[in-house]
């Protein structure tokens, strides 16, 4: 029996490590866009994976792993607010840290776009992050966020629309400066 137990433990370990390796980056990025803070994002990911480890036996389908983890992470994030009773902090520009030096046009645009995404209303940003980073379909996002699919598609439309317009406007502005 003890051999069986340690065999199960070993398999669990292998599954867990595979899960961490494959999904920790996506999860971290998702967490980051939920809370705009690298440290909180890291804590959230740690807490999420710890819960995942404890409940790993309940994950039957490996393909569902990502959405399973995201569900845990969203719950963890919500709990953070319950615990601390913090007001949902408004986005502060200082909170978005520039990790790479803005040496070229591309990086400047990246940085700028990051700010725009951070300023976007939560309800538009979250489906967008789930779609682009998570690679989820409209149905999957709807299920994850407990919304209907049309609402999700509308929000995705608005999110991109906002970003596109913002980008086009700055290009014009910058063009004027340059000219």
């Amino acid at each position: 029996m003890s051999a069986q137990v340690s065999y199960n433990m070993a398999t669990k370990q292998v599954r867990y490590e595979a899960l961490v390796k494959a999904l920790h980056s996506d999860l971290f990025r998702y967490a980051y866009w939920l809370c705009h803070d690298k440290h909180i994002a890291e804590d959230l990911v740690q807490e999420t994976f710890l819960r995942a480890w404890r409940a790993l036996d309940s994950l039957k389908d490996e393909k569902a792993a990502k959405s399973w983890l995201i569900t845990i992470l969203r719950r963890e994030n919500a709990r953070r607010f319950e615990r601390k009773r913090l007001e949902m902090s408004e986005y502060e520009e200082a909170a978005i840290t520039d990790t790479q030096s803005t040496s070229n046009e591309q990086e400047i645009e990246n940085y700028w776009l990051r700010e725009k995404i951070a300023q976007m209303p939560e309800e538009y940003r979250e489906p967008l992050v789930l779609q682009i980073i998570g690679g989820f379909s409209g149905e999957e996002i709807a299920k994850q966020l407990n919304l209907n699919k049309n609402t999700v598609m509308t929000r995705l439309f608005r999110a991109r629309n906002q970003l596109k317009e913002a980008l086009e406007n700055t290009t014009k502005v910058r063009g004027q400066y340059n000219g």
Partner: protein
Amino acid sequence: MDDLQFRRRIYADPHTRDEDMLDAIKSDPAKQRFTQELDDLDSKIFKALNVDVPSDLCSKLFLRQTLASHQQQKRKSRIRLSLAASVAFVMGLTFNFMQFSSAYTTLADYAIAHVAYEEGYFSNASTENVSLASLNNKMATFNGSFTSGIGKLLFADYCRFDGIKSLHLVYQGVTSTVTVFVVPNNEDLAFSANFTDDKLIGKSQHFTHSNIIVVGDKNEPLQKWQNAIDKNINWSI
């Protein structure tokens, strides 16, 4: 597909490509350009969303889990240990209870059971002979001594008389051995002066600190034995 619907769909998901969409894109260069624009936008958004992941996050996650599972393991082994301890404790209690509690309520019952159990173990024709000195040596434990031998003593040793340390003497009798127990007073066992079953008879005599019980078969003149004991025994207290 009208333009508005096309835009709505491509904005919601730039990678959507069902037949309607493909047809629309193929048939209209403006839509093609528009699709391209959206693809570009998406790759820009993708780059922007891809914030750097702390390089040590992966190892931190492994470490957290290892610690957590170690603690879980420790908790489990503590539970197992305490379970094992409880089981051992209960077994110990049971053992003690069975070993030392009175299974019999009277001296008589026990004496008869004891003798019946050892039937065949002692032979009346045995040539053993325990000396008076050796007997008195053992009697000292019970603060008593015999002034002279009361018969041919085949065996003398301590025994557990229902959990009480006692002296077990076996004498040669008329047709079979006669057993004499010297048992310290014990309130758990009721005293009975005379007792009998289908084969054996017994007599008990009460002294200050001890009872002396004589058990023999029905041919045995137990009263004679009892008188001999009474006459020969001295109690030091």
